[in-house]
């Protein structure tokens, strides 16, 4: 899976979970400040990302991921490298 493929998948999950328009989910978008996520939104979103990429994202690590770029990098390193 390429970096772009990962981004496309992450973008779709984030858009669905945070009820945002897909084009707003850019790489530099901040989940809280730009996309309006709150604590519960983020938990639900990371649950779906775990299911989608068949991986585990520990809560302490998820808390460090505040931008879409950071999520894409994390998934890329953990799942595809």
């Amino acid at each position: 899976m390429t970096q772009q493929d990962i981004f496309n998948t992450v973008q779709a999950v984030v858009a669905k979970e945070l009820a945002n328009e897909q084009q707003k989910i850019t790489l530099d978008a901040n989940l809280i400040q730009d996309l309006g996520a709150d604590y519960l939104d983020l938990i639900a979103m990371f649950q779906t990302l775990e299911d989608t990429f068949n991986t585990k994202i520990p809560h302490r690590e998820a808390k460090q991921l505040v931008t879409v770029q950071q999520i894409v990098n994390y998934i890329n390193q953990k799942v595809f490298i």
Partner: protein
Amino acid sequence: MISKNIRRVVVTGMGAITPLGNTIKEYWEGLIAGRSGIDLITQFDASLHICRIAGEVRDFNPYDYLERKDVKHISRFAQFGISASLQAIADAGFEINDSNATQVGVIVGNGMGGLYTVEEQEKVLLTQGSKRCSPFTVPMTIANMAAGLIAIYTGAKGPNFCTVSACAAGGNAIGEAFRSIQLGHALGMICGGTEAVITPLSIAAFGSAKTLSTANEEPTRASRPFDRDRNGFVMGEGAGILFLEELEHALGRGAKIYAEIVGYGLTCDAYHMTAPTPSGEGVMRAMELALKDGGIFPNEVSYINAHGTSTLANDAIETLAIKKALGDRAFQIPISSTKSMTGHLLGAAGGIEAVATVKSVALDLIPPTINLEQPDPNCDLDYVPHKSRTQRVDVALSNSFGFGGHNVSLAFKKFELGVRSY
């Protein structure tokens, strides 16, 4: 009984989401036309249930009222409550702002909260494991969340509470809101009931208790309060909300006034989990207390919106209680069960029925009891069968009773400026 040196309370706004329509106008027009909102259940496959009919809310678009992000994470019962509350505030022409927010409260009840979410998340728990349960499970389930979310959506920072008293919850909410304003705890209150539990478990559970109508072949004729052939209630869903306001405050801003709320009676049967006391004593006392609270004599009562569930026990016992509470006058009072058209909205019933009662007082127009074709000999009062009736309505009672033996009666009066007569 509380002191009468208290504030007067009027109804200045109303909102409704119902099986007859999703505005006050549609709801009221449906009632007056004698239209049934009952049909086959579409929200889940009910083909194997003994009851396959309900009064579902149709064509409801939560995006008309809720933030896009919230729609997915707010339960249907709370969505209805928020929507009807926003309607009521708009209808009242009332703006909640920094200067009055702490003086405006919310008391909205329901019977069963977000049962649909419980059922869905139980499936997730059993099939996918505990770590896959939604973090929104609790806020989508707990019954008080409608009241909390209505406050978030309206900015009302005053008294906030959720009455949970089964099918009396909406009536209790309005009564408690009435008291809040009477006692000076608030100037305005958003109050009523909301419910959305047309779910597999709920239909199965009420069905097992033999409380639901099984007239699946004729949905529009299934809810038939006071009729000899009634065989249970038909479940409905929706929300009915009143905006109550302290009289001087309402007058000060030139608000329109639909009616005055003057009495609240609440009692308990202390008898049985689901059956009303055969003597009707608890129901009778609720009506008597509402009348006493409002300083109303039986001969002044001009309409009763009955609880009228269409169950064998309720309708006969409520009839008996009305006779005991009002004596000979009972035979001269038009009574109707609007559940014949909406079905039984459980914790929201008291909300939408209070709306109907207030409209009757305001417009001198009484909605009918439809499907009353062959009266039960034990139900021998004037239930306004088939067609609405134009008749002056000075004082009206709205009754709500719930499993657990909870009984509520609310008294509304045509508003007259001047010194209170009670």
